[in-house]
């Protein structure tokens, strides 16, 4: 049950394309795939090519999404079959080389914002199936902006050096005797590239393999620890994890916002249950990594103080009407929910401030969620006050957020 089922219409009118894709899903949901393109569609979803290759307000797969890195801004490329601006003119071998080796048809190295570090593990057949699917999509003539990188990072030959340190070309190798874990690893590591967000990066922006999936901050959002640590997913039941992955939330517990909301909307909600179970089995098989954000069981909330009165008014007026944190018996989708959110418990408050600025729009397998963005409605000081208040009252920490923290987040 959604907060407001008719909200879907809002999303619907903004993203009509999603529907067409959804309707075409049903044909093969329970069967094998009739064609390479259909298999490719499933793989493309599992790999979530769309989120990174579809800019806000743009057409699917036409690229142009900015990626801010410490070295400057990169833009994703147009992967529609357009001959001039897309990859329509590429041969299959050229496509394979890009996916497996990170090399463009002109021989130049691709920036690793495109996760060929993961895709190199994909089988040749799977890459070609993705290729077949992308070729079946409408061609869009659109040239994304040129990358805006500082010298010397704009020198593509430098990537070769980066690759030497951070990239091993080669297909997926079994990691376990358990076939489910192996399949989950393939889905997570080769296709879903979870680590691109959830694994901390080294000084040179390579993935820090020693802290695999221990949580990291990318593009202004924090991706949480998803290892079996108690501060990761250790205390989550399989049922809860499954719910979270396919719906983007577990009623009253965790919610996916920011890029993870996109992953759910564009990718995970389409996956078959056995595939999600495989991902869960794989995550459970990983070594636990220590987490920075206390678990729900480790924290306790605080009572409001007299000096909180003004921000409490703001909280009553804007937050409480949906989130009902006081447990006074009202329902709604997110009852008693605040302490369950990692965003609220995180003393850094990155995602808490971020979600207030950006809002949230997510489509899960069963329902949809919407939170308005307060970027144009609240001042930096108001958002900082709310984040401080929410963190203290529900998140078990005493970080005081300042207007300049919020101003910095706005720029991200």
């Amino acid at each position, binding site marked *: 049950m959604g907060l407001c089922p008719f909200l879907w219409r809002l999303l619907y009118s903004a993203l009509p394309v999603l529907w067409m894709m959804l309707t075409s899903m049903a044909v093969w949901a329970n069967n094998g795939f009739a064609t390479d393109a259909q298999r490719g569609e499933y793989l493309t979803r599992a790999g979530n090519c769309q989120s990174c290759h579809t800019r806000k307000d743009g057409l699917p797969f036409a690229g142009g999404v900015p990626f801010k890195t410490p070295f400057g801004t990169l833009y994703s490329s147009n992967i529609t079959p357009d001959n001039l601006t897309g990859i329509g003119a590429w041969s299959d071998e050229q496509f394979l080389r890009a996916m497996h080796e990170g090399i463009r048809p002109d021989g130049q190295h691709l920036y690793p914002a495109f996760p060929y570090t993961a895709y190199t593990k994909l089988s040749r057949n799977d890459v070609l199936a993705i290729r077949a699917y992308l070729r079946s999509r409408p061609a869009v003539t659109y040239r994304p902006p040129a990358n805006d990188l500082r010298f010397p990072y704009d020198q593509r030959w430098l990537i070769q050096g980066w690759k030497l340190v951070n990239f091993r070309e080669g297909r997926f190798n079994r990691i376990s005797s358990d076939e489910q874990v192996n399949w989950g690893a393939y889905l997570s590591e080769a296709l879903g590239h979870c680590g691109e967000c959830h694994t901390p990066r080294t000084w040179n922006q390579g993935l820090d393999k020693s802290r695999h999936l221990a949580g990291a901050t990318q593009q202004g959002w924090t991706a949480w620890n998803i290892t079996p640590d108690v501060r990761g997913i250790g205390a989550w039941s399989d049922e809860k994890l499954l719910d979270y992955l396919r719906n983007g939330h577990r009623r009253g517990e965790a919610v996916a916002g920011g890029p993870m909301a996109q992953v759910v909307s564009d990718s995970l909600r389409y996956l078959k249950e056995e595939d999600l179970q495989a991902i869960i089995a794989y995550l459970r098989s990983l070594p636990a990594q220590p987490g920075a954000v206390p678990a729900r069981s480790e924290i306790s909330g605080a009572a409001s103080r007299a000096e909180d009165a003004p921000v409490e008014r703001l909280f009553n007026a804007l937050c409480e009407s949906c989130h009902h944190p006081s447990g006074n018996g009202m329902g709604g989708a997110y009852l008693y929910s605040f302490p369950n959110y990692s965003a609220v418990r995180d003393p850094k408050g990155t995602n808490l401030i971020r979600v207030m600025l950006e809002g949230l729009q997510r489509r899960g397998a069963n329902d949809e969620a919407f939170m*308005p963005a307060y970027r144009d409605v609240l001042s930096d000081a108001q958002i900082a006050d709310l984040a401080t208040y929410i963190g203290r009252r529900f998140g078990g920490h005493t970080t005081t957020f300042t207007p300049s923290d919020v101003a910095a987040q706005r720029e991200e």
Partner: protein
Amino acid sequence: MIDCRLSRRNFLQGCSALIVGFSLTRSLAAQVLAPDLPVEAVQKTLDIHALDAWLAIRDDGRIVLYSGKVELGTGVKTALCQITAEELCVSFETVSLVQGDTWLTPNQGITAGSKTIQVGGAQIRRAAASARQYLLEEGARRMGVDPSVLDTVEGRVMYPGDSAERYVTYAELVAGRSFERPVNPQVDERAPEAFRVVGKSLPRLDIPAKVFGHFQYMHDIRVPGMMHGRVIRPPITGASRLDGLSIAHIDASRLPAGARLIYEGNFIGVVAEDEWVAMQAADALRVTWGYTSTLPNPGDLYDRLKYMAEKPEVQVDHGDAAGQLAQAARIVEAEYRWPYQNHDSIGPSCALADVRQDEATIWSGTQGVYALRSALADLLEMQESAVHVIYTQASGCYGHNGADDAAADAAWLSKRCGRPVRVQWSRADEHGWNPKGPAMIMRVKGGLNATGDLVAWHFQNWTPTHLTRPNARTGAAGLLAGQLIRGVPLKGQKGGGNRNAPLNYTLVNCRVETHWIKPLDSPLRPSALRGLGAVANTFANESFMDEMAFAAHVDPLEFRLRYLQDARARAVLTAVAEQARWVPQPVQAKAWCGESTQGRGLAFVQYENENAYVAVIADVEVSEAGIRVQRVTVAHDCGLIVNPDGVKNQIEGNVIQATARVLKQEVTFTPTGVTSLEWNTCPILSFHETPEIDIVLLDQPNLPSVGAGEATSAAVPAAIANAVYNATGLRLRQVPLTRQRLAEARERLA
């Protein structure tokens, strides 16, 4: 269940049984019958030349005013009753108003353009004065004295000099009959010195019911047998062009029990007895659309507008602007941009329709019952006389919002399902599909001579038409339902975009040109939003006037006064300067370091170049967190003021709305249509952002009243932009003046 429907025939026969049925629809009863009004009394003419079209006097002495202009929430109901009470010499309390009903009220055109008091009020004033003249003459005949010795006081014709204090009441004179007289266009109206009611801040008649919660809005009307309808819209939300649409597939398999699907052409609706079921049905329907989008990418909007525009139409051409510009000692040129903006109705549009074989009744928050009737008659393929449109107040509309379209949705669904249907738009429907105040580009070039005189002015703008309201000319093409059902393209006529493009300053060499854009060439469906083109044009003109003043090294107030001869124009400027304690501004631009800083700016407008005079001073605080308007001082001259507090309420509303429009509001869209589909993406001013507002009203009792509903909106934007310049030295020329635009302007300067 009693059949509550009222046909024209049996309505005019006035059978009492009907009234019983009406108890079920309170507001209809109130509207049609007025308080305690016998049905017979409203068998009336609608001919605007006939007195009976406007007024009726009942046996108990109560006056019924029939107004084609309607109360949109601006207070005109009270003001129109004041005018009537004044001219007719009755107490204010005895006047009641019946408004906006194609069976009952004369056609006064649409309620728009700040014309209700100015034009509609003048008509009503003449009608009331004519009625008084008739009553005086009748009284004189009855009493056997000459009318010149008689007077009218509180509903009586009196003989003041008479020892017996003879009098006869209006009710006795009329005695249940109608006037059977024309309105006298040359009638003497009451002298302002004698005003008892006009000019007073009488409390608004509609407010008590609103604060007690029993005011019946459009959204609250229910009739027996009514279904709830919802409409499922195509992608390309809000686009003008809907011609590339098709429905590939409708999957109704998940439709809840009790819901029914109705569709034709590209129009898809669901109806259900229960509103919640109708809402769920609208969500459950899966429609696969085929469409081609002609909408530009957001960054290409202004290029698209210029590309689509026609050859310029010259509005003003005095002297030799081009020649003088060629010789000017100093030339300044600037381009200003205004975005598409939304109508901020808090209640999304709603309508109720009962369409039968031979007649139709439609309740709507429309601004024009007659215009809507014509368009609906075309849509429903019925005679106009068979369509009865009844105005019912909805949420404030501020122009052409979704009210008319919702009426068409309801009418069509009712026609197809054979039951009365109430259609309530969702928030996304309203934000997405209501017509938008058009985006505009204004480019101005000015020349100064060696001594700093403004010797030439060349203004050009690029604007979609602001007039696409449904009416007899557009027929069904003026209604969203008509466009979707019949595939007819949106229609409109040229207008609105040149409003206040010309200046009121006396400039010898001045050329003003408008490049019009046809309705279908405007990416989003354009139509009237409060002030129309006057808001964007005055933003440009008055910003540029400041730019010229600074180029000439002259204080902006002094600079403006140099080119203003009209005493009333000078008076509002002087008054606002005095009220806000204006001190001449330094003519060197500040260099802003990013610290919080203050500034003030000035703007002047004479609305439509011939109506209300408004001067505004805005005080702003600018910091890296953006622009905050702290105080707005307004001097306002709208001729004779009927209700000063009502005028103030309107000015305050204009200031707050215009502040939001200039600082925050922009309809965002992509090639698949409007994306600002809720309040936070298109915010209205919140309480803590509201400026203090200080108003000086300059009353002109001997001059005609002109509109006060829009003029201030035109002056506020430039005052704010000029204040930002005064504070920071940054000239922001693209609305909205967001924090980001401020930062960009600062970067550009650095």
